[in-house]
Structure formats: C-alpha cells, structure tokens
C-alpha cells in the first residue's frame, strides 16, 4: 500500500473489506483528521432482458485514467482542504456482491469530508476512462451506462 495520504490504485478483481480496513487504519495516524467519508460501489444483481447480471468486467485506458484521477485528487484536496484521499478502482472481473470502487476522504470536519467524497465519486464516473461490461451469462453481455456520460 502506498504511504502517501493521497493515492490511487487500480486493483485486479474485487476490493476487499481488508483493503477498506487498511485505509481506515492509515487515516487513524492523522491527529488533525476528524472525519472520514467513504463511498463503496458494489456490483448489483440487476435484472436485464436476458437474465440477471452475474459480474462486471472492467477495462480502462490506464495512463489517461491515472492522470485524470490524479487531477481529481489534486483539485479536491485543495478545494476542500483534505487531509487524505484514497481511491481504489477494480480492473477485470468483479462478481455481484463484491466491491469495485472505494473512495475514502479524510478532513478536519465532516462537511468537507462528505462533500468532497460525493464530488469525487461523481467526477470518477464522469471524467475517468473506465468501462464496465455487465456479464449476464456465458454468451450475453451489455456495456454498462452511467447515469450521465462524458459531455463530449
């Protein structure tokens, strides 16, 4: 695990509860930090036309995605005076019931932590070149769509 309090990594497969505990542990070392706000995205067994989703397969444009997330971290850290930002996103296959995204923000006070965490999640979904393919069964899959798409 990276020991900078502002870090991002792609993880192969699901993000585990142990990863989350490690992030929480890192924030606990910071004595001016009063609030953690965490968002975890989890793969849902949604019903589609040909059956229900069993997993999502994530691919990304790695160099650009990393650069975009670093920009998002820098922007929010400054704007909200954050003490820490840890972001994990899964690459590859994540089964239903498993976690594919973790955004963990630390700040002195709750308002900054909560607002920054929410804004970072929205930015990741809008601005970062990652794609999810929803797997229905062996022969069927659907490209996932977020509630908004890039404005370009």
């Amino acid at each position, binding site marked *: 695990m990276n020991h900078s309090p502002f870090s991002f990594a792609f993880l192969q497969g699901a993000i585990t509860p142990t990863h989350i505990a490690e992030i929480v542990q890192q924030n606990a070392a910071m004595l001016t930090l009063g609030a953690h706000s965490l968002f975890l995205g989890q793969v849902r067994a949604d019903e589609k036309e040909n059956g229900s989703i069993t997993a999502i397969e994530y691919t990304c444009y790695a160099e650009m995605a990393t650069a975009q997330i670093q920009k998002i971290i820098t922007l929010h850290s400054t704007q909200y005076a954050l003490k820490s930002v840890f972001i994990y996103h899964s690459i590859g296959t994540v089964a239903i019931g498993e976690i594919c995204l973790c955004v963990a923000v630390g700040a002195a006070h709750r308002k900054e932590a909560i607002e920054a965490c929410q804004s970072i999640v929205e930015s990741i979904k809008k601005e970062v*070149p990652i*794609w*999810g393919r929803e797997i229905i069964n062996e022969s069927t899959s659907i490209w996932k769509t977020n509630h908004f798409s*890039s404005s370009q």
Partner: protein
Amino acid sequence: MNRHKIIAFGIIAEKIGKTEFYLENIATTQALKEKLYNQYPFLQTLTFSIAIDHEILQEELTLEENQEIALLPPFSGG
C-alpha cells in the same frame, strides 16, 4: 506522409474488432473524424469522445506526429 496510431476502447473496440489501427494522411481532427465515419459508419450513431495525448478533444486541432489518439465510448466506471 503522416501516419497515426488510433487506440479504441469498450464498445468501439468490440465493434471494430480490434483495439488499435493506423490511419494515414490525416492533418486535422476534422479529417480524422471524416475518415473514421467513412471507415466505421456505426461511429456516426454512437456517442464517443476523442482523446489526444490523454486530453479530451474540446475543439478542432491540427494533428502532430507521435500523438496518441484514442476513441472513447461513454465512461461507465464506478
């Protein structure tokens, strides 16, 4: 003669059947789009962005040598 490598992702890579290909003699992003629409007509009905060296194209540009050109369907991370 210039020659550009184009990389494709997600549904675009799936539909064209490859993740990279080359285009020749494209001087501007307008020429790039014309050639793409001509070669892959499905792109005319698909929402996608073009990134030049990791920056989403906001206005038409003159293309330079060794730029990384990427075709990006709507993002669906998270």
